[in-house]
């Protein structure tokens, strides 16, 4: 498993076409811990996603970090969630809002091939995280 977002980026950029990237993405998704079924409630669903996405965000003041867990019933979104979680791992709220996720995804070459409505689902997830971070700045 990749240890950091930077490592992930290096790896992805080295990959050839979108097929290879998506294959890798789905492998990443497989490593994402499964969320307990009891947690997969409607209230935890991210609105605006085509597939089911459940997400919980918490803030640990001691470490000034966001804690995010998320899951999806689809492989691709799970993979994208894995990327997002890696991107925001060990980040303070201030660092979170400073990240240009759109740009990062661009560099990974992941959104370009995704149809706009699917891309919007990913944006909805990122926005929810950002909104949470804003409240804890």
């Amino acid at each position, binding site marked *: 498993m990749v240890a950091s977002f930077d490592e992930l980026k290096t790896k992805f950029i080295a990959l050839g076409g979108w097929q290879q990237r998506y294959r890798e993405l789905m492998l990443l998704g497989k490593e994402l811990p499964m969320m307990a079924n009891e947690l997969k409630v409607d209230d935890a669903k991210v609105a605006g996603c*085509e597939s089911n996405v459940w997400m919980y965000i918490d803030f640990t003041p001691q470490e000034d970090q966001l804690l995010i867990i998320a899951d999806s019933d689809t492989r691709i979104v799970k993979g994208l969630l894995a990327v997002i979680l890696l991107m925001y791992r060990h980040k303070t709220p201030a660092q979170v809002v400073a990240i240009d996720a759109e740009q990062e995804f661009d560099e990974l070459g992941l959104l370009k091939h995704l*149809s*706009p*409505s699917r891309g919007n689902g990913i944006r909805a997830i990122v926005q929810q995280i950002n909104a949470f971070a804003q409240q804890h700045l």
Partner: protein
Amino acid sequence: MFDIEAIRSDFPALTHHQQQGIVYLDSAATSQKPQCVIDAVSHFYENGNANVHRGAHRLSSDATKGYELARAKVAEFINCHANELVWTKGATEAINLVAYGLTHRLGKGDVILISELEHHANIVPWQQLAKRSGATLRAIPVNDQGIIETKSALALIEALKPKVLAISQASNALGNIQPVHTLIKAAKAHGGLTLVDGAQSLLHLRPDVKALDCDFFVFSAHKCLGPTGIGGLYGRYPCLEALEVFQTGGEMVTKVTINEAQFNPPPGKFETGTPNIAGVLGFGAAIDYLNALELAQLRAHELQLFAYLQSQIAQFSQVRILGDLNNNIGTISFVVSGEHPYDLATLMDMEGIALRHGHHCAQPLMSALGVNGTVRVSLAFYNNKADVDAFITALANTLEMIA
């Protein structure tokens, strides 16, 4: 600058009419369309054509993007939020949607107030609501010129405390611009819901729904440079939320079993079935076109033309004009004593003047005015002085012929 000839050349039908010797003075019935609107419609069918909101593939996703972008444009044009704008097939459907959605909110003793000069679209749905709910339908009277007198209208609102006030911002039959803002304020003081019929005002007055402070506002694209078969309902968000669903089916639901369905929040709650995607895209292009024109110049041109039309028509002493000429979107509605509007309009039509005669879907107004119909000339900003001159010549011929 406002270059009328350049503007006219944007409207292919005007050129075509000219070749046939026809002058179009019936914009209150439907407006002409600039080429960009026609192209937006064709472009969709020729390129992206796909269904919306079905999220399957990029064609569909692109169509959805364009469709929602048009919603945002129209919403901005009337100054509301995109989620306060419901697509309907036109003003008539929008009024029906509200009238059905209020069925459970009204009861015996409640008053729905309209005016005597409303279009049938803003009368009959309220009659039906009154029948369903037990409420009573009343109408603000007009004076013998067909004008609503603000004072007596306010007194009536005061007396009746209507639960619903539904009124047109501009009359289709006479062109009157109405004191809607004042009437809305009075109705709201008593907790009444307010609906503005903007079918005629959208093109001429570019209404701002927040400034009007109405709860609902309805309009049709085809009267505002857009395609046929599309229009909209603005509703303040809580007002939309409080309406019962109207038409039901696909898209507007989240979860369906054989016996139960859960509905989307507005505007989705009211939008079922495959929408008029090409119509929406064309309407978006119409709004782009209007946004590129300076409203003040456009309105000045219209008013100048309207003044010229009035000054010219004044030479015919037998012509009696109805309506409020001081507050008007550019419509002359007239009768000639002893002459049937049908005869006048038939002869004018043979002279190549496209105008309308009859009751203009406003029979109660015709009764109130004691006429069996009028002849109506309705201007839009794409008309020019030559159009008015052609009309005056034709009218002179007609009156001379019929004498």
